[in-house]
């Protein structure tokens, strides 16, 4: 990249020792934030939810998480080193996040090759085929999940009961065997309605990292505090789902069909709202744009949950809104100082 940085040696004619002076364009100082700092902080904020997942779903879930992260990191290193001839940037933490997020949205009992194939698709196709970090249009983990959903419908949709067999920590601690379902939002399995407390803690069926609302909210709140997540996305997203879940006529018959709290706490909403929709690269640039984006995600999620064949709408609604991001950017440009009518397009 052109940075006009050249070393100049001063003539030794003066009384000073010859020294090399660095000549660069202003500013000559930089703020504390850079990509590794942001990424590793997000990794840290994701950990509590993963720990809860492993606690309830067992060590096999941990195996899936580690496998997914390793596959993501390795894919990135191989592509950068051998395909693109770029410096390998896995240390920046971005591939680790993709690996983590992908594992978090997989059922805890998936066969080992699912996270591996998913990670290769996420990093190879969704991220690097589009130009690498910063240039990808869709959130890599979500796009990979959508790909797996289509490519491997059987293991993705039916391997939930492996949890119980794998034993893990779950059976010892809760003694529950009810967690053999895909999601608390599925009415076919939904003989049982989970308590708000179960949903908060994560003592419910679901994907590895999506179940514990409290752990996800903690991590998300920390990212908002650090300034890496704009509150408009999660608040706009969750708020919209809350309102629409109350207002829209439900098509299914379940005690929670129009229960806004249940809709907010159950399924992948918390993970999506705090960690997926807030992905900087694939969400709009301006605050106004982020609010529109969050609300859009909320509308789509509720519509899919209420009126589509699929019980969970988080993945596809965020992917759709990712697609709409350039359009949102276009209409939410910042306003030039001193121009009441707003900045030019």
């Amino acid at each position: 990249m052109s940075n006009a940085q050249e070393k100049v040696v001063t003539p030794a004619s003066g009384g000073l020792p010859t020294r090399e002076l660095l000549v660069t364009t202003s500013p000559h100082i930089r703020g504390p934030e850079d990509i590794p700092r942001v990424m590793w902080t997000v990794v840290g904020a994701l950990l509590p939810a993963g720990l809860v997942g492993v606690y309830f779903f067992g060590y096999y879930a941990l195996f899936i998480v580690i496998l997914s992260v390793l596959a993501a990191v390795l894919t990135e290193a191989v592509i950068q080193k051998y395909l693109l001839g770029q410096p390998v940037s896995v240390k920046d933490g971005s591939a680790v996040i993709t690996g983590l997020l992908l594992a978090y949205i997989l059922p805890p009992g998936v066969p080992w090759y699912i996270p591996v194939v998913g990670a290769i698709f996420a990093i190879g196709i969704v991220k690097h085929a589009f130009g690498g970090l910063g240039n990808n249009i869709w959130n890599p983990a979500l796009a990979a999940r959508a790909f797996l959903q289509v490519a491997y419908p059987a293991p993705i949709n039916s391997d939930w009961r492996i949890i119980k067999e794998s034993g893990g920590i779950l059976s010892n601690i809760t003694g529950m065997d009810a967690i053999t379902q895909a999601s608390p939002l599925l009415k076919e399995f939904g003989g049982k309605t989970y308590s708000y407390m179960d949903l908060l803690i994560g003592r419910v069926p679901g994907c590895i990292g999506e179940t514990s609302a409290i752990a996800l909210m903690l991590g998300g709140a920390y990212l908002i505090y650090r300034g890496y997540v704009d509150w408009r996305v999660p608040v706009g997203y969750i708020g919209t789902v809350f309102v629409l879940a109350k207002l829209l006529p439900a098509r299914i018959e379940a005690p929670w069909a129009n229960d806004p709290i249940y809709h907010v706490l159950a399924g992948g909403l918390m993970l999506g709202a705090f960690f997926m929709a807030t992905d900087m690269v694939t969400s709009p640039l301006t605050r106004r744009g982020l609010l529109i984006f969050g609300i859009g995600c909320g509308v789509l999620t509720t519509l899919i949950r209420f009126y589509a064949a699929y019980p969970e709408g988080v993945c596809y609604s965020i992917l759709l809104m990712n697609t709409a991001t350039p359009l949102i950017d276009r209409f939410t440009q910042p306003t030039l100082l001193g121009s009441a009518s707003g900045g030019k397009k």
Partner: protein
Amino acid sequence: MAAEMKGLKSFQGGIHPPFDGKSLSKDREIVQFPLPEVAYLCMSQHIGAPAKVVVAKGDVVKKGQKVGEAPGLISANVHASIAGKVTDITFKPHPVTGARTQVVVIQREGEDMWAPGLDEPQDVEAMTPDDIRNLVREAGMVGLGGATFPTHVKLSPPKDKTVDAVILNGAECEPYLTCDYRLLMEKTREVIEGLRIVMKCLGCKNGYVGIEANKMDAYERVKAVVGHDAHIKVELLEVKYPQGAEHQLVKAILGREFKPTQLPIEAGAVVHNVSTTYAIYEAVKHRRPLVQRVISITGDGVERPANLLVRVGSPIEPLLKASGLKAEANKVVYGGPMMGIAQPAVTDAVTIKGTGGILVMSSAGEWQSHACIRCGKCIEACPYGLNPSYLSILCESEHFQQAMEFNLMECKECGCCTYVCTSRRPIVHLIKTAKYELGRQKARAQEAQKAKEAQKVQAAAAPATTK
């Protein structure tokens, strides 16, 4: 931080570095630096046309004698900053723009005496606005904050514009620099008198002094000097860069906005910083042309940061040596860390009127830049409402016309976007390069147009000659 900043006047956007470097030199009193043996007077120390040399090689000049004369309105005179002999009239690279520029070289000789007619107390009360304007113009006054806009132009508003606020800019928001703060502390009375002179010149009854809240002692001192003068309001400002830029200052104090490419006069305001206002006082009250100014020598590359009173055109090497230049110093910047200009060499550099500070850095780094990750921090930081993310991408890929549609030309290059950039992109550099490239394209197009017209004239003339 937010809590302690409550109730302070401010603006949208901006940044504040965790370490602003002010502590290095803020308590160092202003010291007159020994006169240079040789002064190098650049004929272009201001925005506008370069001054025309009015001395010849071999001439003996007194301090304050005019050596360069402004050829037009948007220009400024240049005066001999020391008494001596003109030993050369030559060309050197300009310390800020890098362009070849004419330089008058004066070898110091004899006593440090003012030229006749100068350094005489004047009766300001009896002056008309035009008298003041002429004195300021004669004195070669320019904005000493670094932009070096000729001051007399600011004192001559167009007839259709009214000035209802004169703002003394005591924000000094650029990190590290403390020259204005020291002047506010040590020459409070003179600076406020300078503000009154400007108000008188503009026939304006409302004066404001804006001071950042990290300079409470200066604030108290100014309040004490202003006393019961109901025409001057002293305002505390949030500590935030670029609080002292005209747009942000006018917004903070008056709540008025104007476009980045417009002048404050559009909002009925005229802004002068402390150094300029002090120099105006000197020029009008004592008839002393602008031959010296306070320069902060600071940064972790010098042992003894200082605020020095330095003659214009002084070589910087003695200044840095006297301040204890460290062996590991690797970057020398004219101005502050946000907008300052890095110098290629210590030995050749001389000061100009706009040099308010020399920042010496000992471990200046280079940053590895990355593709934009769209974090949006630059947009939040931009105090002018631009989209630095888009601009940097468009400029990098040389889509200059599209960059213009995103207000490229409105960028003031304050550096906030680049400071906060998570991807460490050299945004200001890309923008500056794009503007430069556009300027060249325009010049080329004009030349081509001229050539075409010349050809047409020739073609039209050709048949006539054959007849």
